[in-house]
């Protein structure tokens, strides 16, 4: 971990107007929760559906994508990463720092608003708010690690990430039950199911698979990203 690298990355992610890209989606989530409460949809079923579809199913992957690739891809695209890589800082430590920044941003902009939105909708009923916040926390960290790795591996990181989140987790996961096993958001729902006692929430993946999977994917992705940074080649684009 390197505090200077971390502070530069935070500034790149939050500086000027960029923070709005991160803040817009969580604000929309909270606004929708308030709106649903006002039109009288504040029951447990609605809350679980909103959390499943919206908080874990949409906002979490999107923020993971924006934060995970955002901490490193623009620098690689610009070529300015060469200034960072030429400093006597171990490359795996750069990867770890970037991962920590991305993970902290996802926790702040996704797990916390998830809790707030569910709390506004139904309070602490059946542990829905706490459960989904818990699930979003760990799934968000896994997303940060995976999308950081994708950002180091390819220049088209965002497109690859979109295809994973939208086509694999969204479309294919909707029809093929087997695909849900390899989906980070499903692992998050499994974790949410552990904390929440709501009968409306049913996880498809067993905890004995999801919990180790999250840990292994996170650790392997960060280590691989660090390894990959040690031999990064800067190629011209188009």
């Amino acid at each position, binding site marked *: 971990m390197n505090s200077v690298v971390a502070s530069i990355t935070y500034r790149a992610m939050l500086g000027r107007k960029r923070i709005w890209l991160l803040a817009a989606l969580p604000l929309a989530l909270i606004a929708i929760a308030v709106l649903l409460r006002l*039109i009288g949809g504040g029951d447990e079923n609605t809350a679980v*559906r909103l959390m499943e579809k919206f908080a874990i199913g949409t906002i979490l992957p*999107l923020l993971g994508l924006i934060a995970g*690739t955002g901490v490193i891809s623009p620098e690689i695209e610009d070529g300015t990463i060469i200034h960072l890589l030429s400093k006597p800082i171990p490359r795996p430590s750069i990867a770890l720092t970037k991962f920590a920044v991305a993970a902290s941003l996802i926790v702040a902009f996704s797990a916390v608003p998830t809790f707030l939105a569910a709390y506004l909708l139904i309070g602490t009923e059946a542990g829905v708010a706490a459960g989904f916040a818990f699930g979003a926390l760990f799934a968000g960290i896994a997303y940060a690690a995976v999308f950081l790795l994708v950002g180091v591996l390819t220049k*088209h990181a965002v497109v690859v990430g*979109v295809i994973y989140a939208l086509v694999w987790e*969204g479309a294919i996961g909707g029809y093929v039950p087997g695909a849900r096993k390899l989906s980070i958001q499903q692992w998050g729902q499994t974790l949410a199911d552990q904390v929440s006692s709501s009968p409306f929430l049913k996880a498809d993946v067993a905890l004995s698979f999801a919990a180790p999977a999250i840990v292994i994917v996170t650790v392997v992705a960060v280590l691989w990203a660090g390894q990959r940074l040690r031999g990064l080649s800067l190629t011209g684009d188009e």
Partner: protein
Amino acid sequence: MTQPTGVIHDIGYRHYDGVRLSRGYAATALALHSLRGAFGLGRPARSKIIPFLVAATMLLPAVVSIAVMALLKQQPLPYTGLAVTMQAVLAVFLAAQSPYLVAPDLRFRVLPLYLSRPVTVLDYVGAKFVALTVALFLLMAVPLTLIYIGELLVELETPVHHGDYLAAMGGSLIFAVLLASIGLALASFTPRRGLGVASVIAFYMFTLAASAVFFGVLLSEGLDNAAKWSILINPFFLVDAVQVNLFGTDPSNGEGYPPGFGPAAIALAVIALALSALFLRYRKAAAS
């Protein structure tokens, strides 16, 4: 002190005496170049991967449809449902390619170079918009036409759906115009390609999830009418609603849409808003 003596040598530069092509020619050339670029033509091999993958995926329903028609003698997918069924694929194409059309010119600040020619801001924006619209239209129209040709050749017992095919082609054009205007407007706000992709896809996934959540909640509250309006948050259902009301086709959401001119008015307002945002963005970029 001697006066400096300089000689201007004639090194053989020649004037251009040929025909000066018009402003329209330049705009057409820009549009054609952008259209080719949207499919990765004239760009390196790895820029071709995603558009080619998307185009191949869009052809899959056509292939399956023709096979089913030939073997089982029935039509599995109605023409008018193609875009809604394949919306995720179209959204990926829009998100991946609309930043390519606008971001590099903004990022490398080459807009003044374009504008030093007869091309105006309006021409530039129009060319990019037409290119993306045509690209999206082709993605939908080619599979539709293939299915149509298949239906003509297979000779099903049911009469050929001429009307549905034409309605779907008209609907595809509306889809293309609406999606292209939204995609370009969102992508033009950042000169970085990655952020552009992220913001377009964030818009799509947000509207997708919001329309599903509101539709479900309002329906369970018994507010059927409000539920039908709320599903229009998703641009694909918005255009499908316009298509249903305009051409009288079957709705693809299974529930029906609000009748009348409401959806069409919303769609027109969205297109107008997106295009004026795009134009204002470029007028500002051209001035800087």
